[in-house]
C-alpha cells in the first residue's frame, strides 16, 4: 500500500463518501428510470395522437357549423333581445314589486313547510302509540285518541294553507314571466341556432390538455382516474383456451385502434382508421358489434397484450410490409403464439369457427371463394373436413367406365390429364417433381397400366338405349350455348363465356370426340343421363331426339389430335413384380414375398397391383370404384389444420417458403411434391398429393378457408347458432349446391354464375330468385321440381329436369320458404269474394293496362314475352302478386314488367276511386279467379285421365 491512512483505516473516508454519493446518485437515477420505463408506454402516445386527431375533427365540425349559422338572423335576434330587454326595464317598478311579494310568499311557504312537517311526524307517531295502546287495552288510549284527532285536524288545516300559498306563488311567477316572455323567447331562439356549436365547443374543450388532464395522467397519480388508459372489451361468450381453463376473451385492441368503431375516420392512417366494413363488423348497429364479438375472435392474435406493437402478434401481409414494420415498429415474427393474427385479406378465416353448418356466408367474399375452390378441386374427397361429409364424390363414377372411354384414352388421361384438357380438374399424379426420374417412371407406367386393367375388369356392362342418327354440328353448338350447359361446363369454343361463368360442376367440354368412344353412348347420356349413372347430377334437358343428335354431332366433332396420337407404353412386367414384392414384403421377408408372387398368374399380379395402386393413389376417394365402397379417404383430416402447431408442418428443405401455416398451405397447394426436394425416399414413400396446377389466387383462397379450421371451441353462447329458418335454409342449400341450382339462379342476390353471360340483358338469363319462397306456392313448387315445364317460352336457356329424390325436393321447397320466412301454405280461396263493382273495375284495369300485350298466352295469338297468367292461380301467392304489382322493380331490378303504381299512385285515378291498393287487390283477385286450377299443362292431362 503506497498511501498511508489513519490507523485502523484501510480507505480514505472522504473518498469513500464520494463513492457512496456516486452510487446513491446512480441508484436514484435508475429508480427514476424504473418509473419512467413503467410510465412511458407506446399506446399512450397513440392515444394522445388520437386526441389530436379528434380535436382537429371537432374543430373542423365547428368551422362547418359556423358557416351554417346565419349571421343576419342572429343579428336580428340580438336586436330583438335588446328591445325586449328595454321593454322589461321600463316595467322594472312592477317587477320589483312582484319580486318583493314573491319573497314574502316564499318565506310563508317555508314557515308552513316546517309546521306541516312537524304535524306530519306527530300524527304518524301518535297513530302508532294509540294503536298499540288500544290493542293492549291500556287505560290512556282514549286520551291519546283525543290528541291524535286534534293533531289530524291541525294537519288538515296546514295542508290547506299550503295549497293556498302555492297557488299564490304560481300566480306571481306567471306575472313575472309574462313581463319577461319576449326576452325568454328570443333567448331560446338564439340558443337553438347556436346549440350545436355549443355542444361541439364543449366536446372540443374536453380534448384540451389542461392542468387537470396533466394531473390525472401524471406518474404515480394515474392509478386514480386517468383519461389516457387501456381500454378493453371483455367477452364472456367467447373464451380463450388457457389449457387448464377457458377464460373470457379480453381484447384491448381499441386502446390503440381508437376510432375503429366510429364513422368519419376512414382516411386516417392506422391505427386510427375506421373499420373498413363498419356495417357488418365492429359497428354497434351491425351484425357483429365490437362489444359482443371483440377483435381477435375474428382476426386472431393475442388481443389482451398491449405491451408494444409486437405483443399482440400483428402479422404483415407481405415481405414489404414486414420490412416496413421492422423499420417503423421494430417488428419481429411472434414467438410462441398458438394462433397469430390472420394477415390482411385473410381475416375471413376467422368466420369459420363460429359459423358452422353453412358453406357460403353472405359477405365473406374470400372465404366463399376458398370454399368454392375446395368444392371445385374436391379437397374434401381425400381429406376429411367436418361439415363436408355430405358432399358427393367430385369425380365421375368409374363403375361403367368401359362403355364410355377406351383403355388407351384412360391410360393417357390418368398419366397426364392436363395434356388432354388444360382445364381438367383431375390433378396430375405422374411425371411430377418427385417422380420424374426414369426408374420412377417405369414403375409409374406399370401402375397406370395395372390401374386401367383393374378398373376395366371391375367395370359393369352398359348398353346405350338410343342410337345416334346423325345431327347438325352448327345447331348443336348453338344449343350448347343457349340451353345453359355452361352453368356447369366450360366450353372450349366459348372461351370468354366460360371464363365469365367459371363453371366447374361438369367437365370442361373440349376434345370430347377423342374421349367418348361411342356415339350412341353420347346421345343416350344427353337424352337421359340417369340411364348410365343413376345418381348423376347431370340433368335431362328434355331434349328432342333431334336436339340430342345435334349436340352429339357437335361435341364429338371436337377432337384432340395431339392426344389421340399419344401411345401408352405397355406394362413392364419386371417393374410390376418389383412393386408387388415391396408390397408383399411389408410384413414378410423378401423370400416369402417372392414365393407369394410366384404363386400368382400374370393376370392376378396385374389385378393385385391395380387394386393396390387405386388404394395407394386414392382414386377411390374421388371416383366410385367397385370394391372400394366405404374405404376411408386417403388424405389426413383437415378439420383442425388451422391449429396444427407450426413445428408439425414438414417444410423439408424448402427454405424459401414462408415459415407460417398459411405459407406452408399455399406452397403445398401450388406444388404439393416440393417437400420431397433434396430427399432420397424409396419409391413407395414418395409424396402422393397430386398437382392441381392451381393458380396462386386459388391456392390463397383455399388457404384462408383452411386456416379458419381451428380447434378453439367457442362456447355455445358465442357461436352463430342457426335459428329454425336458417337451419332449414342451410340444409336446403346443400341440395341447391349439389345440383348446382346456384350455377344458373341468383338467390336473393348471391350466386347465379351463368348470369355473368347475360350482362347485356339480365332478363334473357335464368330467372333470378328473389323472395322465391314468398313468390310461389309450396305445392306447385314441389310439383314443378319433378315435372318441369316451360314457364317462359321466350327464354332460350332451359330449366332442366333433375333426378331428385322427394326428400331433396322437399328440402328445396323448405329452403325458399324459410329464406322468405313464410308459411308453407298461403290462404288461397277457391271462390273469390268480390266487393261491389270491384270485378268490373278489375276487368277494366286489366284491359287498360294491356296486360295481355306481354302475357299473351291463352289471351291472344301473339308471341308471349311474359309468363302465362292463367297458371298464376296455382303457382303464385296472392300476397306476393300484390307486392309484385306494387313495385316489380324493387323485387327484380331491371325487370321488363312495368311499374304501374309508381310510388303508390293509382294507375288510373278513375277506377276504384283512384286507390292504388284497391286496384292491385282487384287485379290479383281477377288473376285468382280466371286462372286454371291445375299446376301445369301436363298436370291437366294427368288429372283429366
Amino acid at each position: 500500500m503506497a498511501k498511508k491512512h489513519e490507523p485502523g483505516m484501510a480507505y480514505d473516508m472522504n473518498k469513500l463518501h464520494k463513492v457512496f454519493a456516486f452510487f446513491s446518485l446512480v441508484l436514484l437515477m435508475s429508480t427514476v428510470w424504473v418509473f419512467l420505463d413503467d410510465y412511458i408506454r407506446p399506446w399512450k402516445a397513440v392515444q394522445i395522437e388520437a386526441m389530436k386527431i379528434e380535436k382537429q375533427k371537432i374543430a373542423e365540425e365547428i368551422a362547418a357549423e359556423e358557416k351554417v349559422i346565419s349571421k343576419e338572423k342572429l343579428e336580428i335576434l340580438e336586436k330583438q333581445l335588446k328591445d325586449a330587454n328595454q321593454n322589461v326595464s321600463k316595467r322594472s317598478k312592477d317587477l320589483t314589486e312582484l319580486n318583493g311579494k314573491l319573497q314574502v310568499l316564499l318565506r310563508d311557504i317555508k314557515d308552513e313547510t316546517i309546521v306541516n312537517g312537524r304535524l306530519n311526524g306527530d300524527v304518524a307517531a301518535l297513530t302508532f302509540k294509540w294503536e298499540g295502546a288500544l290493542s293492549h287495552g291500556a287505560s290512556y288510549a282514549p286520551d291519546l285518541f283525543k290528541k291524535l284527532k286534534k293533531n289530524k285536524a291541525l294537519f288538515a288545516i296546514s295542508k290547506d294553507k299550503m295549497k293556498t300559498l302555492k297557488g299564490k306563488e304560481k300566480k306571481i311567477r306567471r306575472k313575472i314571466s309574462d313581463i319577461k316572455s319576449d326576452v325568454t323567447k328570443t333567448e331560446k331562439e338564439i340558443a337553438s341556432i347556436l346549440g350545436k356549436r355549443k355542444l361541439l365547443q364543449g366536446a372540443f374543450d374536453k380534448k384540451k390538455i389542461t392542468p387537470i388532464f396533466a394531473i390525472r395522467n401524471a406518474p404515480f397519480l394515474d392509478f386514480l382516474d386517468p383519461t389516457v388508459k387501456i381500454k378493453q372489451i371483455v367477452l364472456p361468450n367467447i373464451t380463450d383456451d388457457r389449457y387448464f381453463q377457458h377464460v373470457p376473451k379480453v381484447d384491448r385492441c381499441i386502446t390503440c385502434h381508437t376510432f375503429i368503431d366510429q364513422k368519419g375516420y376512414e382516411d386516417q392512417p392506422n391505427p386510427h382508421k375506421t373499420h373498413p366494413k363498419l356495417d357488418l363488423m365492429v359497428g354497434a348497429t351491425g351484425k357483429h358489434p365490437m362489444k359482443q364479438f371483440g377483435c381477435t375472435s375474428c382476426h386472431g392474435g393475442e388481443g389482451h397484450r398491449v405491451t408494444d406493437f409486437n405483443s399482440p402478434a400483428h402479422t404483415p401481409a407481405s415481405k414489404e410490409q414486414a420490412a416496413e414494420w421492422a423499420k417503423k415498429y421494430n417488428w419481429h415474427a411472434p414467438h410462441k403464439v398458438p394462433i397469430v393474427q390472420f394477415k390482411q385479406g385473410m381475416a375471413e378465416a376467422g368466420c369459420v369457427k363460429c359459423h358452422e353448418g353453412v358453406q357460403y356466408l353472405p359477405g365473406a367474399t374470400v372465404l366463399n371463394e376458398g370454399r368454392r375452390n375446395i368444392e371445385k378441386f374436391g379437397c374434401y374427397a381425400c381429406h376429411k373436413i367436418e361439415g363436408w361429409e355430405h358432399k358427393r364424390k367430385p369425380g365421375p363414377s368409374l363403375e361403367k367406365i368401359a362403355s364410355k372411354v377406351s383403355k388407351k384414352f384412360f391410360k393417357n388421361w390418368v398419366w397426364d390429364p392436363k395434356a388432354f384438357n388444360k382445364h381438367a380438374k383431375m390433378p396430375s399424379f405422374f411425371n411430377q417433381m418427385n417422380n420424374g426420374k426414369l426408374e420412377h417412371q417405369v414403375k409409374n407406367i406399370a401402375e397406370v397400366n395395372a390401374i386401367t386393367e383393374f378398373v376395366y375388369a371391375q367395370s359393369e356392362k352398359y348398353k346405350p338405349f338410343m342410337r345416334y342418327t346423325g345431327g347438325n354440328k352448327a345447331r348443336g353448338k348453338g344449343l350448347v350455348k343457349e340451353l345453359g350447359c355452361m352453368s356447369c361446363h366450360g366450353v372450349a369454343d366459348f372461351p370468354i363465356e366460360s371464363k365469365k361463368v367459371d363453371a366447374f360442376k361438369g367437365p370442361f367440354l373440349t376434345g370430347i370426340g377423342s374421349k367418348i368412344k361411342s356415339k350412341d353412348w353420347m346421345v343416350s347420356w344427353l337424352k337421359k343421363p340417369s340411364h348410365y349413372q343413376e345418381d348423376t347430377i347431370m340433368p335431362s334437358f328434355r331434349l328432342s331426339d333431334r336436339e340430342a343428335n345435334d349436340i352429339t354431332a357437335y361435341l364429338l366433332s371436337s377432337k384432340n389430335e395431339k392426344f389421340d396420337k399419344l401411345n401408352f407404353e405397355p406394362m413392364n412386367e419386371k417393374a410390376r413384380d418389383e412393386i408387388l414384392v415391396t408390397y408383399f414384403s411389408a410384413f414378410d421377408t423378401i423370400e416369402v414375398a417372392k414365393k407369394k408372387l410366384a404363386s400368382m398368374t400374370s393376370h392376378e399380379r396385374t389385378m393385385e397391383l391395380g387394386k393396390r395402386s387405386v388404394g395407394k393413389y386414392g382414386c377411390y376417394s374421388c371416383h366410385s370404384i367397385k370394391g372400394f365402397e366405404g374405404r376411408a379417404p386417403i388424405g389426413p383430416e383437415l378439420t383442425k389444420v388451422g391449429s396444427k402447431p407450426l413445428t408439425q408442418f414438414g417444410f423439408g428443405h424448402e427454405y424459401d417458403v414462408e415459415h407460417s401455416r398459411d405459407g406452408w398451405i399455399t406452397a403445398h397447394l401450388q406444388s404439393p411434391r416440393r417437400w420431397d426436394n433434396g430427399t432420397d425416399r424409396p419409391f413407395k414413400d414418395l409424396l402422393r398429393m397430386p398437382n392441381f396446377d392451381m393458380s396462386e389466387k386459388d391456392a390463397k383462397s383455399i388457404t384462408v378457408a383452411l386456416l379458419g379450421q381451428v380447434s378453439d371451441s367457442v362456447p355455445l353462447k358465442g357461436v352463430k347458432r342457426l335459428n329454425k329458418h336458417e337451419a332449414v335454409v342451410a340444409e336446403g342449400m346443400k341440395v341447391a349446391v349439389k345440383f348446382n341450382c346456384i350455377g344458373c339462379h341468383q338467390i336473393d342476390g348471391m350466386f347465379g354464375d351463368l348470369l355473368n353471360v347475360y350482362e347485356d340483358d339480365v332478363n334473357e338469363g335464368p330467372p333470378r330468385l328473389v323472395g322465391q319462397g314468398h313468390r310461389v306456392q309450396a305445392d306447385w313448387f314441389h310439383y314443378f321440381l319433378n315435372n318441369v315445364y316451360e314457364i317462359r317460352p321466350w327464354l332460350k336457356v332451359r330449366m332442366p329436369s333433375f333426378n331428385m329424390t322427394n326428400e331433396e325436393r322437399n328440402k328445396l321447397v323448405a329452403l325458399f320458404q324459410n329464406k322468405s320466412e313464410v308459411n308453407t301454405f298461403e290462404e288461397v280461396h277457391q271462390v273469390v269474394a268480390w266487393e261491389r263493382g270491384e270485378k268490373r273495375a278489375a276487368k277494366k284495369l286489366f284491359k287498360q293496362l294491356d296486360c295481355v300485350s306481354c302475357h299473351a298466352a291463352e289471351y291472344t295469338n301473339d308471341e308471349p314475352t311474359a309468363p302465362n297468367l292463367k297458371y298464376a292461380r296455382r303457382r303464385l301467392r296472392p300476397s306476393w302478386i300484390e307486392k309484385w304489382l306494387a313495385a316489380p322493380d324493387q323485387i327484380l331490378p331491371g325487370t321488363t314488367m312495368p311499374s304501374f303504381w309508381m310510388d303508390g299512385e293509382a294507375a288510373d285515378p278513375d277506377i276504384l276511386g283512384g286507390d292504388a291498393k284497391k286496384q292491385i287487390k282487384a287485379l290479383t283477385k281477377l288473376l285468382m279467379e280466371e286462372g286454371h286450377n291445375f299446376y301445369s299443362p301436363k298436370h291437366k292431362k294427368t288429372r283429366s285421365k
Partner: protein
Amino acid sequence: MKEFINYMADPIRSFPLMTIMYILMMKYYRIIGTKKFAVGALAVLLPIVTWFCLDDNFRAIIMWPDNIPINIIIILIGWLTWYSLYRCAQNDERIERGECPIEATPENREKVWTWPNLVYTELMCMIGVVVFLVVWAIVFKAPLEEPANPTWAPNPAKAPWYFLGLQEMLVYFDPWMAGVVLPGIIVVGLMAIPYIDTNPKGNGYFTIKERPLAMWMFMYGWLVLWIYLIIVGTFLRGPNWTFYGPFEFWDFHKVVSEYNVNLSEFMWIKWLNMPMPQNIVVREILGIILTVIYVCVLPVLSAKSKWGQKIIANTGQIRYYIFIFLLLGMTSLPIKMVLRWLFSLKYIIALPEWELNL
C-alpha cells in the same frame, strides 16, 4: 473454419480439449499468470470474439435473454481465474525465494475497523448490485410467453442456467444418478471440505505450489466439470437436446445417430455370444464387479500407495477414505463420458428392474 469450430465444439472433442487446456493452464500458470499474458490473450481473443459475433446464428444464441448470465459468467470466470493464477504466481515465486506471501506482509496484516472499512463498502456493493439488476431488468425484459400448455412442451426444455451442468450430466447418467445422487454428493462433498482438508497452508493467501492436489482437483471439478458443462448446456444444446455447433442454425429437424448399448449386452451378446441370463444380478455381474472394484478396492489399493500413505499420515484414515470416495465420485463423470463416446456405452450396471442404472 466455422465448420471446423462447429465440429470441434462437440463435447466428444471439446471435452478432452478442455481437459488438455486445463492441464496446460495449471502446469504453466506462472506464464499465464502474468499481466503480459493477460494483455496478449485479450488482444488475440477480442478480434476472435468479434468475428464470432458477426455470425447470425451465434449472435442469436448469445443474445437470447436467458443466456445473458452465462455470457457474464464466462467473462467473470475468465477474469477471476486469471487473477487467482496471477496472485498464485506472485506468491509462489516469493515462497520459492523464501519470502512470505504478499498477504502475510506486515502492512497487509495490519488490522482495520469493521466500520466503516467493511460495512460501508458492503453497502456500496449492495447499491451497485441493485442498480445493476434494475438496469438489467429494464433493458432485457422478462419475456411474456404463451400460456402453459401441458400438451406442447417447449423444445429444448432447459433448466435454469445454474442447473444446466446437471442437465448435461443427464446425457450420460440415469436421471436418478445425475439428478439425485451426484448433486447430493456434490453438496455434501463441498460441505465436507473444511473437515477433510485440515492443511493450514494456503489459508488467507493464493498459492498453487503449496497445495497442488487440492488446487488441481478442485479447479478441474469447477472449471471443466461444472462451468464447461453449463456452457455446453446453454449454447450448444438445441432442440431435442441435440448438439449444435456455435455457428449452426437450430434446425428443429436435425437428426443424430445415437444407439447406446449396456455393458451387460456387450459382455453376454457381443463377447460371449450367449443369451442374456434370466437372473438379473448374474446378467449385470461384470458391471457390478467393476463398480465394486471402483468403489471398494481402489480406495484400499490407493491407500497402500506412497501417495495415499502420505495423505493418511497427514490427515488420518477416515478423512482419507471420505476424500477418496468423493474424488472417485467426481472422476466417475469423465470416465462415463469417455466410455460413452468411445464405446456408445449406455450403463455399466443396467438394472431398470430396481431402478438402478449406473
